[in-house]
């Protein structure tokens, strides 16, 4: 199975301000559950995209750095070979997929993910009426016992593919934007086809500032980060 698409993302850390708009966009787009205080205190938060914040140095020479972490869609994904029921699989476009109705909840994949981006439904979550009206019909609502994670908004990819197919063309650069990239005020997140060397994402991924998260593990992520640069005073 080959595909002309290899979806990837570039995260420019020099642009990222850590504002959190992407986190809410992701939650809104993908029916990610609302978790209360108790659940989060148990470490059972349900975000597909989180912003890590690091403190570097000490007062007054201190810096805070932000790192948006979402599923890296690894090409050698540690989560895939451990799934006993093939719920975690690799699709032809290079996406690391998760089939919710196959998942039996062993949590092996979550355990094996070095980026800790897979979240498990420890509880059945509720959207008290009329809050359930906001649930997107494009996405299933996951129940207790199912592992879930970032899909690069695969529902948007599918729709664009169908559109492109009906017009007998390939998907244009910039035609698909996952919810996080679409809303990012500073344009820090760029999504596109890495297999097309002229796409914006491919051009950015060749920047000398590039690095991949935990590169030494050999997971070959689809997400490329660009270091913050420039003059530093601390």
């Amino acid at each position, binding site marked *: 199975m080959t595909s002309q698409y290899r979806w990837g993302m570039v995260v*420019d*850390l*020099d*642009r990222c*301000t*850590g*504002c*959190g*708009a992407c*986190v*809410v966009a992701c939650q*809104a787009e993908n029916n990610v559950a*609302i*978790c*209360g*205080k108790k659940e*989060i*205190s148990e470490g059972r938060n349900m975000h597909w995209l*989180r*912003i890590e*914040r*690091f*403190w*570097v*140095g*000490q*007062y*007054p020479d*201190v*810096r*805070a*750095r932000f*790192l948006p972490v979402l599923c890296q869609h690894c090409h050698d994904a540690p989560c895939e070979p451990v799934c006993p029921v093939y719920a975690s699989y690799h699709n032809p476009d290079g996406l690391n997929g998760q089939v919710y109705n196959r998942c039996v909840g062993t949590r092996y994949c979550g355990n094996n993910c070095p980026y800790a981006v897979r979240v498990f439904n420890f509880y059945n979550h509720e959207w008290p009426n*009329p*809050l359930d*009206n*906001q649930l*997107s*019909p494009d996405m299933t609502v996951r129940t207790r016992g199912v592992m879930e994670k970032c899909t690069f908004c695969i529902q*948007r990819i*599918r*729709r664009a593919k*169908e559109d492109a197919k009906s017009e007998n063309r390939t998907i244009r650069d910039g*035609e*698909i*934007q996952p919810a996080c990239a*679409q*809303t990012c*005020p*500073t*344009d*820090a997140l760029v999504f596109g086809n890495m297999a097309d060397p002229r796409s914006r994402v491919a051009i950015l991924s060749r920047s000398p500032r590039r*690095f991949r998260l*935990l590169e030494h593990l050999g997971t070959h992520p689809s997400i490329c980060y660009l*270091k*913050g640069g*420039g*003059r530093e*005073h*601390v």
Partner: protein
Amino acid sequence: MKRRTFLQLGTVIAAGAVLDGCRSKNEQLIPYLIPPDEGITPGKGTYYASSCNACPAGCGILVRVSEGRAKKIEGNPEHPINRGKLCARGQAVVQELYHPDRVPHPLKRNGPRGSGAFTRISWQEGIGLLTDRLKALQREQSTNGLALLTPHLRGTLAELTGRFMRTFGSTNHVSYELLTPDLLRIAARRSFGQPTLPYYDIAETRYLLSFGADFVDSHLSPVKYGSAFGEMRQGRDTVRGHFTYVGGRMSLTAASADRWMPAKPGSEGTLALGIARLILAESLYDSGALAMNGLEAKKLLAALDRYDLPRVAQLSGLPQGAIAEVAREFASTRPALALAGEMVAFQSNGPESVRAVHLLNLLVGSLNRPGGIYPDAGSPSGPENSFAELIALIETMRGGHVKVAMIHGDPLYSVPPATGFHDALAKVPFIVSFSSLLDDTALHADLVLPDHAALESWGDVIPVAGTREPLVGLMQPVVEPLFDTRQFPEVLLATAHELGGRMAAALPDESYLELLKGAVRKQAGFGAGVDFEAAWVDLLQHGGLFKTKSVQPTGYRWSSDAPPPLPEDPDFAGDQKTYPFHLIAYPATAFYDGRGAPYPWLQQLPDPMTTVVWGSWVEINPETAAEHGIGFGDLVEVSSPQGTLRLPAVVYPGIRPDMVAIPLGQGHRGMGRYAQGQGVNPLALVARQGTKQQPAWNATRVRITRISGNGELVTAGHPQGSLRSELVEI
């Protein structure tokens, strides 16, 4: 064709090709529960353009509606303010519409105030109760007994409320917001003779120097300036803009800075003048700009003589070397831009400190130039002393002269108790709230006439700032109203109609929509040949009127009679011995002034700097925390001359050791199940400074005491970040 169908067809085209849904074969199998002429196709989203009113920035939004329900809010790519981008707060507005605790119908109080005991009544009865009270005031010839308190309103709604109060014969009409930019307007008037807020050309600048302006989280237009910041950093091939932040607490905005200068609170203006003096003394200024503004370098240098480097360094608590370096960089990197924000303005010497920053822009020739500041065209004029008006209203209420208070918004939460507002309001015999959730004010109201949610409302949204072209964003209902609610202006019109006489004559409009259309028609300046109905539909499709006939404000020019800015020494409530720490109450990224608190997405959104969820916290420097034996998450008592609060501590490396900070937005008594009882409201600590008619919310001193080891603090991440930063190489 119905209007709704027409709009749907149009908006899909306007919103771009991506938005067109798939036509699956299943479409014919799903029965149409709703008649097809409503244009609803199961499984297919339709996008409606509207405007966000979650904060004064006024971004344009597209709401995805599927099967008659609003699903998701995205930025409107055509809107000049946000260009398709949207912040976390704007996206959560859909939860205002579907909040499970919305007030579904009018309510009448049937228990003691604040108990939350209400009975359901009809709209007819509700408006009847209000008009009876108003008629009584008219009979007694004491029409000034009516007060109307709202947030800052602009556009048609401001016009309508103004007309309502004027015709009724009451002067007690106050528009007040906690984070009002009044002080920035006062400063601009003193320096430039016009009260326009600044428009920052951040995208084109090469050196950004912010004095407490948190432009990516709360200052004026966060999405607009956040987007411009991204461009400043990486939008140009050869230039990466530099960013220096001055402020005692490292805010979310400051976290993106290349250099952070933790100046003592209240010393920011002095620091700006120190930088200005150095630029003048070393002749690094733009002589053309100085001459154009009628200033002489020599005279100015003499006026700033007191601000020599050693003294400024001592007052601001910063090293001399760093100040001199920033001054030289700022003056020699063109274009350079200096901003002053709320953290500076809400000090006792606020306006003069803001003016000191104006002077910096002038010295490097950044007024009305690319990469500099321009007068903003969003809302060139606005209230300049709404706080003084609020204080006057409080006095009137305290004297028992207000008989009926109509309140939109939640002042019981957002007005600091130190003003005496809470006691004064309790003396008003009849309070009407228009809140759509039972917030702190609605809980104390005698009558609740619930407003529509924003996504059910008509309106015009004029951005407070963030544009050089005047524009009007439009709000349209994207779904049918969920409950038996009515839009606030409709209630005003209905009340005027009921009152009859002069009131009915002054407010003859059938509906708010008619009034709105009339106002937009005037603003658009359509000629006689234009089919207004078609033009109106076109405006709604695109989200507003982005090209108006209004004139742009004239450029900034230093007033000939403006003295050089001279901020006095900062003044703080509480003596240093008993209260050793400065308190900063800053707007939380997720909640702004508290308006975001009822939405669970925002409660669950980890605070970017601390990763705290569902609660409040107090930020303490690690050194200070160690001295007081306070650990991460300990319960701490914070006391000021005004009040005492208990909340968990966050050991925060980015704050001065003599300062503590508490985010605003939590600590609601009401506001629905998600906000109620979460955290504390730091406004309870804020003291009012003397008799000045000027808000100085960041000029209070506090002391801290450790209470116990369990503050019930919940963070989404590890305090240091869950991956070690060496590992990820950032």
